[in-house]
């Protein structure tokens, strides 16, 4: 193997040669004997497993299946199992061979055939064999080994195509396999029965008592009784786990004798955990504990035996401090479920200190994650302050990957268990302070919602945000919350001269210039609310609104708000003003969108379990509406509408329109933070039609017309087309594609929205390529986004010769897909048909832009609506070398800006993408974390699709 390691290229060369050799053997006139066929099929398999693609030899492998030499048949089946995808032509031939082997009554051949069905498991196979295999399974004269394979084979087919497996009298006989003398047969049959029981519990009900008695016999047997089925002194661990799993498909047994026996089993298992180990080997304790954890799962599933639940909890408590990381992890995981049971919830809570300690000291992030999950699950009103405080302090050092989730958990717990809403407000503001970047809209919307709905906390909230805003640097989310709350309830603290109206206003306005457009818009609305709340601030605020930086702001939304608010403040009477700017009405109660978000993040199962499983309606804020009670949910609303932004406050919207007649277009609600207006106006440029393009002719003598959309695709791109595409994102020249016959080189250059690409097609063989045709197409939308003209090429490429094709490209608007290049030619007797993605990506139309640090961050903030940003956190695929990264970013097309980011390890870039219809300004920031071998990439551009596409392209490069 040493030579393999030495040079990848040499290996590829060697393998290509070998493949050509095998191909010629298979194609040759001389019929190959079985031995040679087997040898070459085996070689192909080996080459495939080295990671190379294999596109021939299937037929030869199928031929081997009908050999009556065992080893030839075996290799044939292996090849089919590893390499066959549902190629219907072949499947028919394969099925034929399988049919013969199943009918052969030779157990070794039958097993091979059954393994093949189980490995491929396609629908065609289910159609052919689903009714045959049950017969084999229950036939009296079937060998044990065949029964085992038949059971698992049937299981696989049932999973693929349940409709094709007929239930019938065989089902009762399958259940009785649980009584079989051969433990291997029982092991295989239990898996099948478990799967069938899930789907048809009634039909298989009798399996419960059989499974209990089998389990009981195993659990009570001495460690040597089961001979080869004993594993490191543990009798039949795999079978025990499977039986316990099967029992979890059913409720506790009704028959008291059966139930008694089962409870005895679980007690025995729990007792054994306390016995001294019979061996020091980890295999012994793993096997023993595997059974223990499965028994605990069953106990939790039944949730009816308080005694067992508490014992389980105590056992897991011991594991929490075990020296094996694996056991600590599993104990935390399993305890999460116990916390959901009313019988063991209290017992779980006694371990709170250990779990908090785990959160702080575990060295493996996956274990810390489990600890955080468990704290969340064991939280109730008695320990909420402690748990929330611990989670908050953990947040300061938490791994980036789980911060957002922790933020959501804290927000949910704080709301759910708030006795005192001042605590809730403090907690959320702390959350913003500690991890502002990870506080999603849902979280800060929710705190505002709750403050508006609860008048006992409004004064405290106003005071607290006012204090929080005193900090010289506060997170933008804090400014948003502060702006909104002071705009509504600033009057509640205005009596204190230290927070007089003008002081409040000046404090808010001191943050204005550091904020992004949406936040500024929100602040403008707060200002107009101030005008209503505090008439004495009117002139100051009017001055601000009147200033050039507002009235002539380049942002349409800000300008519009400034104009309207200024007018409103000067012409509307106090009554009108008071009506328009009335305090926001309480929000209708609905499901916390935060909870919805956490559910989405964690998958439906986990969170619902906890929320609904806890059965503690009494705990849910004793009747206070902002409950997180998921069952009262009407319809989850899109998060943007949480504040009722889409429907203007009563009368407000229409009144505005009246005041200004048709001088201004109808505006959205007056409520601060209405962001949909922004995105709409920002999106506008992108919608400009691309029809002008038709006129654009780049080169003069264009002949090959680009096929219009709707023309049939010549072929699907080669499987790794995307990889090829990614290879060229940061460079313009190189080898695009190579196989045994053909090499394609590429050279390209771009300026503004135009590009020219030279493709070189080299014939690597000594034989002519005939009917050589090239076709470039733009699938779907792309035809409106790119204008591509390709010059035709000569239809013959001599052996060893090279032809060149020139392609002119005009970028009409931003795009996501890549154009397809289809190559067809005749080589020898066969038509070759290759489709590749042409490496034309939107970043090719970048023009770098230099800018200073303050400009950068100013623009960065302007592009802060969620649609404008795309972000990805990903693992490094290559060594994290600063110089290489720089070169790649420059190759990507943006300018690399020096001394902009305060963190010198980070990279920032800026540029403009030129298209015929619009220009899109793009900012990017790449933050490497060499310790974690991760990157975080953030793209902000004025167009959502561009942000996403650039982010996707660039994140593949490191």
């Amino acid at each position, binding site marked *: 193997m040493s030579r393999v390691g030495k040079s990848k290229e040499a290996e590829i060369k060697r393998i290509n040669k070998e493949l050509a050799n095998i191909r010629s053997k298979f194609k040759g006139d001389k019929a190959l004997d079985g*031995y040679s066929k087997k040898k070459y099929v085996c070689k192909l398999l080996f080459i495939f497993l080295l990671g190379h693609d294999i596109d021939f030899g299937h037929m030869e492998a199928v031929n081997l299946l009908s050999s009556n030499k*065992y080893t030839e048949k075996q290799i044939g089946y292996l090849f089919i199992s*590893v390499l066959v995808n549902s190629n219907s032509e072949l499947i028919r031939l394969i099925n034929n061979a399988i049919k013969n082997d199943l009918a052969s009554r030779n157990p070794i051949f039958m097993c091979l055939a059954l393994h093949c069905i189980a490995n491929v498991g396609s629908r065609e196979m289910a159609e052919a064999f689903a009714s045959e295999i049950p017969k084999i399974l229950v036939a009296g004269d079937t060998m044990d080994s065949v029964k085992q394979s038949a059971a698992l084979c049937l299981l696989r087919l049932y*999973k693929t195509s349940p409709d094709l497996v007929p239930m019938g009298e065989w089902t009762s006989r399958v259940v009785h396999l649980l009584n079989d003398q051969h433990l291997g047969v029982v092991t295989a049959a239990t898996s099948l029965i478990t799967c069938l029981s899930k789907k048809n519990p009634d039909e298989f009900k009798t399996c419960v008592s059989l499974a209990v008695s089998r389990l009981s016999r195993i659990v009570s047997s001495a460690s040597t009784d089961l001979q080869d089925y004993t594993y490191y002194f543990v009798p039949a661990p795999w079978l025990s786990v499977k039986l316990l799993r099967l029992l979890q498909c059913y409720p506790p047994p009704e028959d008291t004798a059966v139930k008694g026996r089962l409870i005895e089993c679980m007690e025995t298992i729990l007792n054994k955990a306390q016995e001294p180990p019979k061996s020091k080997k980890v295999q012994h304790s793993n096997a023993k504990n595997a059974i223990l954890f*499965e028994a605990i799962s069953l106990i939790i599933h039944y949730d009816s035996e308080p005694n067992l639940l508490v014992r389980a909890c105590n056992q897991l408590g011991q594991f929490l401090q075990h020296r094996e990381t*694996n056991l600590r992890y599993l104990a935390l995981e399993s305890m999460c479920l116990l916390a959901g049971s009313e019988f063991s919830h209290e017992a779980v809570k006694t371990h709170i200190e250990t779990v908090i300690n785990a959160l702080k000291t575990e060295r493996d992030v996956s274990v810390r994650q489990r600890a955080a999950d468990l704290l969340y699950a064991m939280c109730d009103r008695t320990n909420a302050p402690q748990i929330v405080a611990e989670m908050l302090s953990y947040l300061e050092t938490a791994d980036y990957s789980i911060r957002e989730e922790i933020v959501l958990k804290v927000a949910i717990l704080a709301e759910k268990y708030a006795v005192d809403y001042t605590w809730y407000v403090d907690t959320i503001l702390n959350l913003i302070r500690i991890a502002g970047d990870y506080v999603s809209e849902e979280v800060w919307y929710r705190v505002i919602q709750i403050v508006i709905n609860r008048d006992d906390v409004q004064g405290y909230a106003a005071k607290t945000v006012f204090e929080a805003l005193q900090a010289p640097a506060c997170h933008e989310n804090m400014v948003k919350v502060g702006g909104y709350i002071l705009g509504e309830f600033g009057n509640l603290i205005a009596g204190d001269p230290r927070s007089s109206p003008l002081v409040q206003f000046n404090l808010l306005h001191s943050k204005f210039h550091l904020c992004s457009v949406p936040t500024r818009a929100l602040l403008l609305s707060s200002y107009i609310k101030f005008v209503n709340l505090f008439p004495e601030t009117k002139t100051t605020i009017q001055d601000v609104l009147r200033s050039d930086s507002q009235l002539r702001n380049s942002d349409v939304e800000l300008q519009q708000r400034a104009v309207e608010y200024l007018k409103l403040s000067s012409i509307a009477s106090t009554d009108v003003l008071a009506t328009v700017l009335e305090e926001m009405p309480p929000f209708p109660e609905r499901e916390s969108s935060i909870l919805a978000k956490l559910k989405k993040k964690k998958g439906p199962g986990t969170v619902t379990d906890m929320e609904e*499983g806890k059965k503690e309606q009494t705990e849910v804020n004793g009747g206070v509406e902002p409950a997180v009670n998921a069952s009262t949910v009407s319809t989850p609303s899109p998060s943007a509408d949480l504040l009722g932004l889409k429907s203007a406050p009563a009368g407000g919207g229409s009144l505005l329109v009246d005041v200004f007649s048709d001088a201004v277009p109808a505006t959205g609600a007056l409520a601060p933070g209405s962001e949909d207006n922004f995105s709409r106006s920002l999106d506008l440029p992108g919608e400009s039609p691309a029809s002008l393009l038709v006129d654009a002719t780049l080169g003069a003598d264009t002949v090959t017309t680009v096929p219009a959309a709707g023309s049939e695709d010549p072929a699907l791109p080669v499987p790794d087309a995307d990889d090829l595409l990614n290879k060229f994102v940061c460079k313009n020249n190189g080898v695009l594609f190579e196989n045994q016959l053909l090499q394609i080189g590429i050279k390209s250059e771009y300026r503004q929205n135009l590009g020219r690409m030279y493709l070189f097609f080299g014939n690597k063989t000594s034989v002519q390529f005939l009917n050589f045709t090239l076709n470039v197409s733009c699938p779907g939308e792309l035809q409106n986004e790119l204008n591509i003209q390709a010059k035709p090429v000569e239809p013959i490429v001599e052996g060893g010769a090279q032809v060149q094709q020139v392609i002119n490209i005009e970028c009409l608007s931003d795009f996501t897909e890549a154009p397809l290049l289809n190559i067809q030619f005749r080589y020898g007797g066969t038509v070759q048909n290759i489709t590749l993605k042409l490496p034309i990506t939107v970043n090719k139309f970048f023009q770098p832009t230099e800018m200073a640090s303050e400009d950068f961050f100013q623009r960065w903030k302007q592009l802060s609506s969620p649609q404008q940003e795309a972000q990805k956190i990903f693992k490094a695929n290559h060594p994290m070398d600063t110089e290489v990264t720089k070169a790649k970013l420059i190759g990507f097309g943006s300018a690399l800006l020096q001394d902009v980011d305060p963190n010198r390890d980070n990279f920032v870039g800026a540029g403009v993408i030129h298209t015929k219809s619009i220009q899109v300004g793009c900012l990017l920031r790449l933050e490497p974390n060499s310790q974690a071998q991760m990157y975080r990439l953030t793209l902000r551009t004025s167009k959502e699709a561009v942000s996403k596409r650039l982010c996707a392209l660039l994140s593949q490069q490191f």
Partner: protein
Amino acid sequence: MFLSLKSLIGNTGESNTVLLRGKMQFMLLFSRQGKLRLQKWYVPLSDKEKKKITRELVQTVLARKPKMCSFLEWRDLKIVYKRYASLYFCCAIEDQDNELITLEIIHRYVELLDKYFGSVCELDIIFNFEKAYFILDEFLLGGEVQETSKKNVLKAIEQADLLQEEAETPRSVLEEIGLT
């Protein structure tokens, strides 16, 4: 109480996609250098998807430190892995499945290889890959444990070996390709 919950989840998740999922989803063997030595897929996936999963997973597992937990959450699956000398054995199982017993599935497979080859090493698996697959098929079928008795598994393989007519081995195959 949990009963009702389970049945609720069961009802909503009763679609074919859930049924399609096997116990074990796949097993991968790879070297410390990240070279894939054996792959067994128990769910239908495209080659592209398989390559992507392999790449991601090899990277994730190789980046982990020795004392870390043998289990990790990955996408919506659980990964159970263990290192034996230069080889990593890595299984993907579903959320509800038993991690510890999976760890011992890996160990039993290693024992089977060891017994068959006589102190197995990475090279045995490279040169006799077909045997490694045959042994695996006897032990695990369709992602489920078929036969846990070491004797019975090896008996099946040895029976087959007796039927081997010619004395050629895959080693000679490799030599012919020139990769040895």
